[in-house]
């Protein structure tokens, strides 16, 4: 019966994985790495979500959307739970998620290992152009700079391309 369980879990995963993120609707919760696990036990489905930032106001919305979609798919006994450990990281955003972000004009995050390797710059003022380049999601130009570390949502920063002169948002590495 192992294969049946795997197939059941796969089907439930597909339903939960298709839920769009409320704040980055071009991404699904699976693209974003927020959907941690889906388990099917008999008739019960449990979906685990790992919230992004502590203060992310979209967590309740995500939980409600996953719950609703699973019920709409015919599951009656649905549980949505949060998993805090290990903490979410931008490294969990899938390749597909990164592609969709760039397509929507949002620069995807770099691997956190690349950022750590570039070293913290706690005592230098205004490293608005970082060692590890952030290519412009519109023109691909490498000459970009940070306008503000904080943007329209907790997970994004505001940047500008010095080649095409367009501002763009960027998902911050965490």
């Amino acid at each position, binding site marked *: 019966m192992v294969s049946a369980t795997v197939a059941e879990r796969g089907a439930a995963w597909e339903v939960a994985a298709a839920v769009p993120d409320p704040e980055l609707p071009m991404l699904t919760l699976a693209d974003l790495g927020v959907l941690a696990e889906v388990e099917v036990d008999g008739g019960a489905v449990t979906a685990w979500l790992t919230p992004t930032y502590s*203060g992310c106001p979209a967590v309740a919305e995500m*939980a409600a959307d996953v719950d*609703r979609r699973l019920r709409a798919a015919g599951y009656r006994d649905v549980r949505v739970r949060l998993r805090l*450990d290990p903490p979410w990281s931008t490294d969990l955003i899938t390749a597909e998620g990164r592609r969709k972000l760039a397509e929507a004009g949002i620069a995807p995050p770099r691997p956190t290992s690349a950022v750590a390797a570039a070293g913290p710059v706690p005592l230098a*003022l205004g490293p608005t152009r970082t060692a590890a380049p952030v290519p412009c999601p519109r023109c691909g130009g490498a000459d970009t700079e940070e306008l503000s570390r904080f943007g329209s949502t*907790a997970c994004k920063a*505001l940047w500008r391309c010095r080649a095409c002169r367009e501002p763009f948002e960027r998902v911050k590495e965490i």
Partner: protein
Amino acid sequence: MQDHSTQADVDDHVYLGLAEAAPGPEGEGRWAYGTGFADPLLGVDTALPPGVDGADLAACCLMLGDDALVLAQRLIEWCTRAPELEEEVALANLGLDLLGQARLLLTRAGQADGSGRTEDDLAYWREEHEFRNVRLVEVPNGDFAHSIARLLLFATARCALYEALSAHPDPVLAAVAARGVKELAYHREYATAWTLRLGDGTPYSSARMQAGLDAVWPLLDELFTAHPAELRAGVDPAVLREPVLRSLSAVLAEAGLTVPDVPPLASVLGRAGRDGVHTEALGPLLAELQVLARAHPGATW
């Protein structure tokens, strides 16, 4: 294979009606109107691990949660008042991180002490003397430099504390701290950048930044003063004193600022924020924070 009705336990799902009655073509139009998923520790295993005392753990979570809640409230006071729109957005984002941490920590406190109090019970229905935050987070914002000075002190110290707490035996506190340490690192970076910009700017900006530091520095010591409940829960902020002071001194030196030579703010018969003894600034802050919840008890939307 998708008829699981026999397993249905509708009583478990008070939000079922909301989830099914969602408006809009995609049914995802309830944004900001309440989802029924109000518990910030929804479905997280909250059993106390062996060897962890619930009362002591609750006391620690309350202290950390109150610090975060009160500073979040101070930070959002900058909305519509910050020098630039970008800074207003930044300060509000920092406040949002802290508010998220506060929700998790207060929820954990209400579970660990066995009282079953929710985050809202603790945030809105305690009196001033029941708050356990350090006085550093409650004093008024002052000018922008003053607020940056407070943020620099708090973020540097709290980042170090969260780093230590991410190995705490309580898995919930450890997870909140592990998440928080990355957020506080951003807060510290932001405060550091402004300290450098103002300190190393014009003589006028430097003087304002120095005045802000001088004003908040007497409140720094409380962050390193261990409360007995913290020590029993395996948390000793005193060990952070040296590394945090070293880090702060390096920032101030780079910014051309002086480490203030001022004594710590006196306590009252040895009691301060961690014991519920606060400055006169906390009362008005709580009045604003709590007025709506108290005017409409239990209201939801």
